[in-house]
């Protein structure tokens, strides 16, 4: 038996790695990958706790929905990033700052 806290540990680490990627990478697609890490960390939590929720299976169902929704979000975000590339010829988020105070 693997204790639940170990799953939590992995997910916390993965989540923090995702945060780092989102905050530091100079490429919009890498930011998307960072967000996917964060989502996966959350999904891991759901799945791990769902072990003790056999009948309702809320955690596993939640995880399934999250995966599906994440895929849709990625599709839309990628389409948007492609459009950005068309106009800015870059997807470096630090260079896309025309809208500001």
């Amino acid at each position, binding site marked *: 038996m693997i204790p639940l806290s170990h799953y939590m540990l992995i997910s916390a680490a993965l989540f923090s790695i995702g*945060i780092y990627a*989102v*905050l*530091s990478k100079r490429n919009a697609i890498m*930011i998307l990958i960072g967000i996917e890490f964060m989502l996966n960390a959350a999904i891991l939590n759901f799945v791990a706790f769902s072990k003790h929720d056999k009948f309702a299976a809320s955690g596993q169902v939640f995880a399934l929905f999250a995966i599906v929704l994440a895929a849709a979000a990625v599709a839309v975000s990628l389409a948007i990033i492609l459009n950005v590339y068309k106009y800015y010829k870059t997807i470096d*988020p*630090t260079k*896309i*700052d*025309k*809208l*500001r*105070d």
Partner: protein
Amino acid sequence: MDTFTKETISLLALIATLLPLFSFAGILLVPGSRDRGSFFSILNIATSLLISVVIFLNVWNKQPIHQQFDWFIIGDWRFKIGILINNLSALMLLLISFIATLVHVYSTKYMEGDPYIFRYWAYLGLFCFSMFGLVITDNLLLLYMFWELVGFSSYLLIGFWFTRETAVQANKKAFLMNRLGDLGFLTGIMIVFSQFQTLDVNLLFSEGGFFKRSLVQGDLWYFSSNHMPAVWLTIAGLAFFFGATAKSAQFPLHTWLPDAMEGPTSVSSLIHAATMVAAGVFLIARIYPIFNPTVLIVIASIGAFTAFMAATIALTQNDIKRILAYSTISQLGFMMLAMGVGAVAPAIFHLVTHAFFKCLLFLAAGAVIHELHHLKDKKGLDFDHQDIRNMGGLRKFMPITFITMLLASLALIGLPFTSGYLSKDAILIQSFEWAESQGSIARIIPYTALFASWMTAFYVARLIFKVFFGELRLNVLFGQAFSLHEAPVAMKSVLVVLAIFCLFPLFSLNPFHASHAWIIEGLPYFSTTPTVESYHILIPAVVSIAAIILILIGYKWYGKNEKAPDYTKAAVFRFSQEQWYLNRLYKVMFVDSVLGLARTAFSFDRTIVDGIVNFSGKIIIVLSAVSEWLDRKVVDGLVNGVASVARTIGNFVRHFQTGRLQHYLLFMILILLTFFVLKYFSQAI
């Protein structure tokens, strides 16, 4: 005319209120020529006046009219609104409609030829509508709405000549100052509502109303099953007073009023002298039971200080309208002072008399300005047509304007036989009596007021002498002899009508004593302070004699320098001799009985007496400079300071808006974590 039922009277009041709104909507919605609207407006306002007279006759000293219906219900909140006409509101209704009608008539000539005059009529209509509404409504919330609307229409009128940059600035200032005040009003409304669950003026403030039944015990303020800390009662009073402070231009929110003189003079006379600024005083009177002794002392002190401060400033102003504006502030200060010392009826009495004579002063000043402006345009000259240093000797050209304005000035100073004398002395007497019962420190308040009233005499004298006596200084300035004309009939007749209202008989049959004036007898809230008989003779005497002396000094300074040949025959000349006589008196006193230096008597007279006169003159100038500095730097600085603090905070916040996505995310997460750390590691939140 006693046969009207309550319903009819409420309906009439409603009609009187809606008629000006009708002219507002009619003028703006029905297209036509640019100069349309004058006849329509005058017709409407005159009808309102007629109705007001009927209402007044039916209500004064009779049963108050109170009609209500449901306004809206949300949840447990049931709002009723309606019309409440008691002596106070009937009086105000009559006053406003009367003065508004006169100003309408006056404006037909004064505003003639303005390219957007139809808007002027429309705005006046909106203003009158809001003012009537304010007076007759029975609900604090509705009162607040009309209060806002009054402010709004006044901004429209101040900014009427919006092509002038100064008018726009003045407009903005008036707007911001009044918003500050409104915050107070709203706070008050909320406190009252949460304590009593109603905003009905009649329920709250009448005899045996909720306020009379609520009581303060220890630290708590009880009403039926509700209670809240007693300090909220004080806060509510202060909050309402703060609202009134802005509208009635009391220290420290008074600076908008002199700036508001950028509007047409007829507007200044209606709004910034006679009616709108009185709304604050009216509010205080309407909700009087809310004020506890602490708040009343604050009101009295602010009133006295304002009266004093504005008077000192008025001493050194040269713009004719600004002098009048500061004198308005000063007089409003008197009314507030009266409210503070419990003299509600004298305060309202002064409000009424002041409305007439101040309106007249402004309209007469408007006539002068009108003529000089006309001259300026005709000859293509360049001078400031509102500067009293450019005027002088006008009494020869404009005798009616002169005489009426003189009457109004005497009323403002408060000399016997005028209406101002009655009301002002009533205030002063009661404030002295109040101070007697309060103890020593409170005496500062009536003495300040007394001093302010003396200064009033001086600056009014200065104004009159500079404008109407001596030679026209423009002749000297431009080296040619100009001649001016009397104002047109429409304006002149208005001045004459108003001048009649500056005299005593309309208010009290006894020219020397106000206590039997019908207005005072008709209003509630007689002061509870004991009467001190001696004051009733002493104070009027002191005030009048000092005022006459000061007028003479004013004459010596501003009127005598002119070498007018026919002075010797004028009655004024005798007074100048008495002035001289007084100087001798001083000389004898100082030389013989005090100093005993007979040989250098004359030179001593020169140095000491003139020295004292000059010295006190200097002190006054310094004082007024200080007041003005305070006015300009501190109060304006406060407003500007608020603005700049707001901008600084805004700018700080703006720095985080870098346009970079990752900065946003970083700040977001950092703030989130900081909040968490503060909450659970330092217990700061």
